[in-house]
């Protein structure tokens, strides 16, 4: 389970969290995009480390899964930037 979290779920959670933050956070779009791009490597590395940090393997999967699902939900309900 931890291997799935570290190799797959951490990446999926990073992508959807970044997209959700890009669409949902307030402020200038280009500024947001730049800051999120800067933080992506850190978010990804943090999720990978978290996969082995938590005592329960299922909890890491659940947490990363929930982050991904929340990200997807925000992407769906947010309007496309114009």
């Amino acid at each position, binding site marked *: 389970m931890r291997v799935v979290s570290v190799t797959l779920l951490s990446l999926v959670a990073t992508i959807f969290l970044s997209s959700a933050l890009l669409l949902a956070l307030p402020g200038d779009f280009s500024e947001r995009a*730049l800051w999120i791009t800067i933080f992506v490597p850190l978010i990804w590395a943090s999720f990978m480390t978290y996969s082995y940090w938590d005592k329960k393997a299922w909890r890491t999967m659940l947490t990363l899964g929930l982050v991904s699902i929340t990200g997807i939900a925000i992407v769906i309900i947010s309007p496309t930037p114009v």
Partner: protein
Amino acid sequence: MLVEQDRHKRLYDLHSWSGVLLGLFIYVVAFTGIIALFGDELGPWENPAQRLAIPEKPFAIDETFQNFAKATQEKGELQFVRIDFPHEKAPYYGGLAGYNNASNQRIVVERKWHPTTGELLPKRGDGLSHWLLDIHRKLMLPTTLGRTLVGIAGIVMLVLIVTGIFIHGKIIKGFFTLRLDRSTRLKWQDSHKVLGIIGLPFSIMISFTGAFLGVIAILSPLVAVIAFQGDTEALIAKVIGEPLEASGESAVMLSVDKIHAMQHPDSDKVPTRVIITNYGDKNAHYRVIYPAIKELNSSDQVELNGVDGSVIDTGVTNTKTTAANRVINAITPLHYATYGDIWLKWVYALLGLFLALLTATGLMLFVERRLHGSEGNRSEQFYQRLSKTNIGVCLGFPMATVILFYHDKLYTGLETDRLYWTGITYFAVAIATTIFSWFQQDGYKTVKRLMIALGVLTTGIPLLNLITTGATLWVSNTVGETFSNGTDIGALVLGIIIIVSSTQIPTKRNNKRKPQSANIELTTLAAE
């Protein structure tokens, strides 16, 4: 920074397994990165025609350049055209133009002109410096795939650093513990920790900036797919602004010689490059690039109309000085050490070498603990093979790099095939060295032999340059010759260091333990 025992075990597993699975790949990225630092300096060594001086009164290049741009425009749909003015790192005029042919393929044409006479410099195919730079940037793969893979190496390196800090814990103590006269395991272990601690700030910086430069290649298309329904251009336009559209009305272009004489708005510096879009159109756009006057900035830019020279406010984000822009603009100079002089590059090279050695010692430690310790459940043969592979790869890539210098000077084939044969030679040598290592009985002897060969070949690089191009270390009249001689001197010094280091390598494994400190050692091992 102590963590509970269970967590320590889990983080140790993540650290060791991600290290052993991707360690060799990270080693290759780190090692090639050391060489990539000197890409500009290698150019004049590689091509004697570039060993030029920057003239006080350069040739008026405008007519030659406009002819080049027009000739390229006739071949297809011109996307951009660029001129590089003679400057310290490239003391000649450089022209680059990209057009889409009938099959909508992007073709890039390149020219180099003499800075004093404007004559076309002898054409030479891409080879040594191009290969060494691109193998680090994108592993010579298609850009998106290659940069993503290199970026992933940076991400994994970040994870290795974080987990390494947590599992190591005693940073101050580890810094002062280097027991080279004790057991082989402690030697690898202490070397790994000391190298990790010495280079920690550098490793964090280089991994983060490398990860950023890599993942950005995959991130923008992914975010475009998710947030912009796959419209990457819309995302780019939203972040960096809409590009200026061509009007369809022809116009005479502003002279690039005039641009060359145009000083930076806040300093006396002159431009190094102009990138032109909408060439030949009333809405032609000149992006004039100056050397950065602020620290940790890639460049300064002024946007001009390419017909009347009026300044354009395109609203392009990367010309604004916001906090995010300052960070983004600092990433490339930080990664490639372009914000300082050559000495900074050597400091980077040394710290980069620590990073490569950190990976190599980590791999050796992994094998050592399994081959001569209680960890692991694979056969001895498996760990022997792993150890030999580590030796082969860790010395194979430096060997391949040095052989490329010889290949560059001794290549006699077509210039258009130079890069192809450079790649074949590079991988052939790296693979051959690894295979050689597999068939050797004793790893210590293999390392010693390969290091002697590497040292001798590296020391021979100045001689090779002397024989093939007549370059001597004591003659340096131009900036190009200085760079070429710098490469020779660097190779000579490195070669001697490698030969001397090889004499320090034992010919067999050291199993000795000091009896009086055996308890301390056992306690240390138990704590690990």
